[in-house]
C-alpha cells in the first residue's frame, strides 16, 4: 500500500503529520464532557457499600435502616441481580456483588440509589453487614502450594540437558501497581422506558461490556446500549467492569437515571491493578555470552477473581526471556488466586514483570562474563528469522531489536551535572543532598511484547466510512482513552481518501459491531486497518460513481478536469463502506507452549541515567533515552506523547509506585501515599523512532504504546544498581533498599 494517494490538492492532516487531536480544544476549555460530568433529568445518585476486610464469611446483610431513610429509593444486594450473577471477560467468576464471602478488601456488598450523593453515602453506611472474618490468603507460595491456580502456562523448548558454563540465578519481586488514571470511575445508566437501558461507564471495549451486562441484567443484547465513554485515562484499569452492572441494576429497579462516581479511595479498590509477582530465574550462557538456556518460574498474584489473569500470565510466560535468542527454555507461569485486590490489565499486560526479572538477569550475566551489558544484549538480540525463545515462533515481521539497542546506546550521555540547584539533585527542594554526595549510574534494558490478541483468539475490528458532501465520517465502537486513536483514525481516512474533512463518530453497541479492545497496543493496527480498508473501498466507489481517476477535497477528477464536487458526487446519497477486519489467525499453544501464538511483536530499548544519594537512598532520574520500534510514525507528536507518558509510568514503578499491601489490606489507597511522578520527577526524554514498516499495519504502522513503560522500569533499576552496587531485586526500589543491609528493608513485600 502507498501513502501517496493524494489528489491535486494534497490532503491536510494526513498520515505522518503531527496534526493536533480534534478533542484538544474542548479539553483545554473545560467543555469536554467526561463520564463524571454527565447528568440526566430526574437522576438519582448511587453509592456502594463495601466490606473493608480482605476475607470474611457474610453472616447477614440488613438493609432495613437504609431503606427507611428519606430519599433512599433502592438498596440492592447479590440476591437482586436479575440475570447471571457473575461477570468477567472470559470466565465469569466475579459475583456482581459479594456472595456469601468477602474475598478482597473493599469488595462491594450492596448498592444504593438515593436523591443525592450524601443521602446515598449515609444509606450505604447504614446497611448492617455482619461478617465473620477469615484468614486471608495473600502469599504467592502458599497459594501455589494450595493449588489456587487460575492458569498454569508451561513452556518446554529444546534440550533439557543442555547447560551453559556461566550461570546466574535470581529471585525477583514486582509489587502491585495501580493504573491510577486521573479520572475515577463514574457512570450513568438511563432506562429507555421499554425495559432496556442506555449505559455510560468506564470501558475500553463496549462490546465485551455488553456481553456481560446483558447477561447480568437479563436483557437481550439490543436492550442494552453500551455507550462510548469519555474517559480520564485507562491504562488497562477499565478493561473489567466496575460500576456498570451496579448502575444498570439500580436504574432498572427504580426506573430513573442513576449516576455513580467513585472517590479516589474507592477507585483504588474499584479497578484492577498490575499483578504483583514473584519470579525465580536461572540463565545459563556460554563463555561468549550466548544464552544456552533459561529456566524461570513466574507467579502472578491474580487476586480473588480470574478476570484477565489467564491472558496476563500467558504474556508473562511467553515473554519471559525477552527479545533474545535461546533454544533451551523452561518456563512455568502461574496466575494464582489470593485475597489481595483483583489484578488485571495494566499497560504491558504481564510483559513488564518478566521484563524486570529477565533484564536484571542479563545484567548479572554481563557482570559474570565481564561483558558490557549492551554488547551482551546485541550478541543475543532476536532478529527476523529467529525463533522466539519460548514459543519457537519464527519472527517473520520486521523486529528491530538490534536497531533499538544500538540507537539508544548511540545517544550522547547528558552532561555530568555540576550545579547546585536542588531541583537537579536527589531529594529535590527537600535540600537533602549536596552535589558531592551524588553518584551517577547508567542502566540499559530492552523489552518485547506481542501486539493484538493472541493464542488463537479471533481478533477483529469493525469500522464504517461514510462520504458525503461535507467530507467523511468514520464510525467505530473503538474507545478513545486519551491515547489519540481519534487522531490516527482521522489521519488514516484522510490519506486514504484524499479528503481532509474527516471526523470520527464513536458509536454505541447498537450502531456498529465490535472494534475489539482498546488494549494490547492493538487499535492503530486493528481499527486502523478497518478504516483503511473501508476508506479504500469508499474512494474506489467514488471514482467509479462518476468515472474519475482521483479524489481530493474538491471532488473527483478525471485527468485535469474536476468531474464532480463532493456535493455533486454524493447528491444521490452518501458513499459508504463497512469493514470487519480480522488479523491473520494465531495458534493455540500446544502442551509445551509451542506454536505461532502471536500475530506480531514490538521492541524498545531504554537507557536510564540516574543520580543517587546512596546514604539516604534517594534517586533522581536525570534522563531516559529510548529507541522505539514504531513501524511507521503516524503522528510524531502523539508518538512522543505515548513515549514520554509511558516512561513516566515505568519510572514510577521503578522508584515510587506500589500498592502497599498488609495481609490483603491496602495501606496507601490515596494520592497522599500512592505516589505518582510529578513534573519534577519526570526525566528529560531523548527518543529515537525506528521505522521499519509492518507488512500489515496501516501505512506500515505498529502498535507501540505499551513498550515505553515496560523496559523503563528495569533500566532505571539497573542505573541505580550501577550507582550503588546494591542487588535491588524488587520494585519499586525504596530508599531503605538502597541503604539497608538486606533487600527486604524489614518490611513485608
Amino acid at each position, binding site marked *: 500500500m502507498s501513502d501517496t494517494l493524494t489528489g491535486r490538492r494534497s490532503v491536510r492532516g494526513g498520515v505522518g503529520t503531527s496534526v493536533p*487531536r480534534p478533542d484538544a480544544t474542548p479539553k483545554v*476549555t473545560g467543555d469536554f464532557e467526561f463520564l463524571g460530568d454527565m447528568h440526566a433529568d430526574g437522576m438519582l445518585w448511587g453509592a456502594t457499600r463495601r466490606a473493608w476486610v480482605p476475607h470474611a464469611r457474610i453472616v447477614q446483610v440488613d438493609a432495613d435502616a437504609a431503606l427507611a431513610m428519606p430519599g433512599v429509593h433502592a438498596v440492592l444486594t447479590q440476591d437482586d441481580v436479575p440475570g447471571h450473577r457473575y461477570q468477567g471477560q472470559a470466565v465469569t467468576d466475579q459475583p456482581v456483588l459479594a456472595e456469601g464471602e468477602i474475598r478482597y478488601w473493599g469488595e462491594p456488598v450492596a448498592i444504593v440509589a438515593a436523591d443525592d450523593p450524601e443521602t446515598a453515602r449515609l444509606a450505604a453506611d447504614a446497611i448492617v453487614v455482619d461478617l465473620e472474618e477469615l484468614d486471608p490468603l495473600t502469599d504467592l507460595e502458599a497459594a501455589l502450594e494450595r493449588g489456587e491456580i487460575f492458569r498454569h502456562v508451561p513452556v518446554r523448548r529444546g534440550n533439557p540437558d543442555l547447560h551453559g558454563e556461566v550461570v546466574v540465578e535470581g529471585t525477583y519481586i514486582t509489587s502491585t501497581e495501580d493504573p491510577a*488514571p*486521573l479520572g*475515577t470511575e463514574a457512570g450513568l445508566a438511563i432506562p429507555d422506558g421499554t425495559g432496556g437501558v442506555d449505559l455510560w461507564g468506564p470501558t475500553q471495549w463496549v462490546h465485551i461490556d455488553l456481553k456481560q451486562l446483558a447477561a447480568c441484567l437479563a436483557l437481550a443484547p439490543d436492550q442494552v446500549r453500551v455507550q462510548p465513554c469519555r474517559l480520564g485515562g485507562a491504562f488497562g484499569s477499565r478493561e473489567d467492569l466496575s460500576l456498570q452492572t451496579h448502575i444498570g441494576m439500580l436504574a432498572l429497579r427504580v426506573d430513573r437515571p442513576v449516576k455513580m462516581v467513585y472517590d479516589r479511595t474507592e477507585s483504588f479498590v474499584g479497578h484492577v491493578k498490575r499483578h504483583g509477582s514473584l519470579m525465580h530465574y536461572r540463565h545459563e550462557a556460554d563463555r561468549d555470552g550466548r544464552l544456552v538456556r533459561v529456566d524461570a518460574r513466574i507467579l502472578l498474584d491474580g487476586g480473588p477473581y480470574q478476570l484477565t489473569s489467564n491472558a496476563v500470565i500467558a504474556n508473562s510466560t511467553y515473554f519471559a526471556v525477552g527479545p533474545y535468542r535461546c533454544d533451551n527454555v523452561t518456563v512455568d507461569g502461574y496466575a494464582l488466586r489470593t485475597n489481595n485486590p483483583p489484578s488485571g490489565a495494566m499497560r504491558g499486560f504481564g510483559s513488564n514483570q518478566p521484563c524486570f526479572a529477565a533484564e536484571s538477569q542479563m545484567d548479572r550475566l554481563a557482570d559474570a562474563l565481564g561483558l558490557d551489558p549492551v554488547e551482551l544484549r546485541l550478541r543475543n538480540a532476536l532478529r527476523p528469522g529467529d525463533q522466539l525463545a519460548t514459543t519457537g515462533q519464527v519472527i517473520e515481521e520486521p523486529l528491530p531489536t538490534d536497531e533499538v539497542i544500538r540507537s539508544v546506546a548511540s545517544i550522547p550521555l547528558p552532561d555530568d551535572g555540576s550545579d547546585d540547584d536542588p531541583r537537579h539533585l536527589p531529594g529535590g527542594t527537600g535540600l537533602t543532598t549536596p552535589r558531592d554526595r551524588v553518584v551517577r549510574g547508567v542502566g540499559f534494558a530492552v523489552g518485547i511484547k506481542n501486539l493484538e490478541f493472541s493464542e488463537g483468539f479471533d481478533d477483529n475490528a469493525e469500522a464504517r466510512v461514510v462520504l458525503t458532501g461535507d467530507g467523511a465520517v468514520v464510525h467505530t465502537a473503538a474507545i478513545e482513552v486519551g491515547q489519540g486513536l481519534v487522531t490516527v483514525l482521522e489521519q488514516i481516512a484522510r490519506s486514504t481518501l484524499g479528503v481532509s474533512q474527516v471526523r470520527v463518530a464513536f458509536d454505541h453497541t447498537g450502531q456498529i459491531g465490535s472494534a475489539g479492545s482498546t488494549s494490547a497496543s492493538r487499535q492503530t493496527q486493528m481499527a486502523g486497518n478497518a478504516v483503511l480498508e473501508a476508506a479504500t473501498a469508499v474512494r474506489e466507489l467514488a471514482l467509479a460513481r462518476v468515472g474519475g481517476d482521483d479524489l481530493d477535497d474538491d471532488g473527483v477528477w478525471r485527468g485535469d478536469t474536476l468531474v464532480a464536487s463532493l456535493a455533486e458526487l454524493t447528491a444521490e446519497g452518501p458513499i459508504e463502506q463497512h469493514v470487519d477486519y480480522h488479523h491473520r489467525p494465531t495458534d493455540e499453544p500446544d502442551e509445551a507452549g509451542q506454536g505461532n501464538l502471536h500475530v506480531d511483536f514490538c521492541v524498545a530499548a531504554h537507557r536510564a541515567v540516574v543520580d543517587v544519594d546512596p546514604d539516604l537512598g534517594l534517586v533522581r532520574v*536525570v534522563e531516559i533515552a529510548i529507541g522505539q520500534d514504531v513501524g511507521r510514525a503516524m503522528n510524531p507528536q502523539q508518538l512522543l506523547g505515548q513515549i514520554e507518558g509511558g516512561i*513516566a509510568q515505568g519510572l514510577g514503578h521503578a522508584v515510587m509506585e506500589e500498592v502497599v499491601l498488609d495481609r490483603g489490606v491496602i495501606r496507601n489507597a490515596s*494520592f497522599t501515599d500512592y505516589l505518582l511522578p510529578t*513534573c519534577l520527577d519526570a526525566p528529560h526524554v531523548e527518543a529515537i523512532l525506528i521505522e521499519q514498516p509492518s507488512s500489515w499495519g496501516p501505512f506500515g504502522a505498529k502498535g507501540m504504546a505499551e513498550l515505553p513503560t515496560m523496559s523503563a522500569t528495569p533500566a532505571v533499576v539497573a542505573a541505580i544498581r550501577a550507582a550503588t552496587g546494591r542487588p535491588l531485586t524488587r520494585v519499586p526500589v525504596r530508599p531503605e533498599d538502597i541503604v539497608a543491609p538486606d533487600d527486604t528493608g524489614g518490611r513485608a513485600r
Partner: protein
Amino acid sequence: MIVTLEVNGEPRSAEVAGWESLLWVLRERLGLLGAKDACLQGECGSCSVMLDGALVCACLVMAADVEGAQVSTVEGLASRAGLHPVQRSFVDEGAVQCGYCTPGLVVATAHLLDERPDASHDDIREALSGNLCRCTGYGALVRAVAAARDAAATAIDPAPADGDSEDRS
C-alpha cells in the same frame, strides 16, 4: 445556607450544605464542570481555580466560606476572540491526552505566566508539581508552557526570547 460569590466576573449564588467544597458548588450547583475531581485531597491539582487572586485546589475550599469571594475557572479563560494563549499552546504542542488534568493545568499555567513571565524550565516544573498528569509524562506540557511564555515575550518584545532548552544535566 446561601452563599454569594463572583465567578468569572458574574455574580452567582448557591444553596450549599456544610460538607460541600467550592469544587462541588462549581460543578453541581453552578454547572461549571471544567474543574475536575480526581483526589479530593489537594494532591492532584485537577480542580485548580483562582480564589481571590490565589491559585487553590477548589476541593479544599469550604463552600460555606467563599461568601463574597472572587473565583475564576477554566471556563473564564477563553474569550470571544478565541482560546487563551496558554490553551492554544496546549493544543499545538500536544500537551493534551486524556485531558482530565488539563483544565487545572491550564489555570495553573496561566497563573504562573502572569506571575513569572520569565519562568525557566525548572521553574515551570516546580510551579506545576502540584498538578498530576498520568498520560503525558509532562514533556509536552513543559514544552507547551515554554511556548506560551516565549510567545508572550515575543508579543511584547520582537527580539526572540532566550532559548531556554531543557536541562540535560
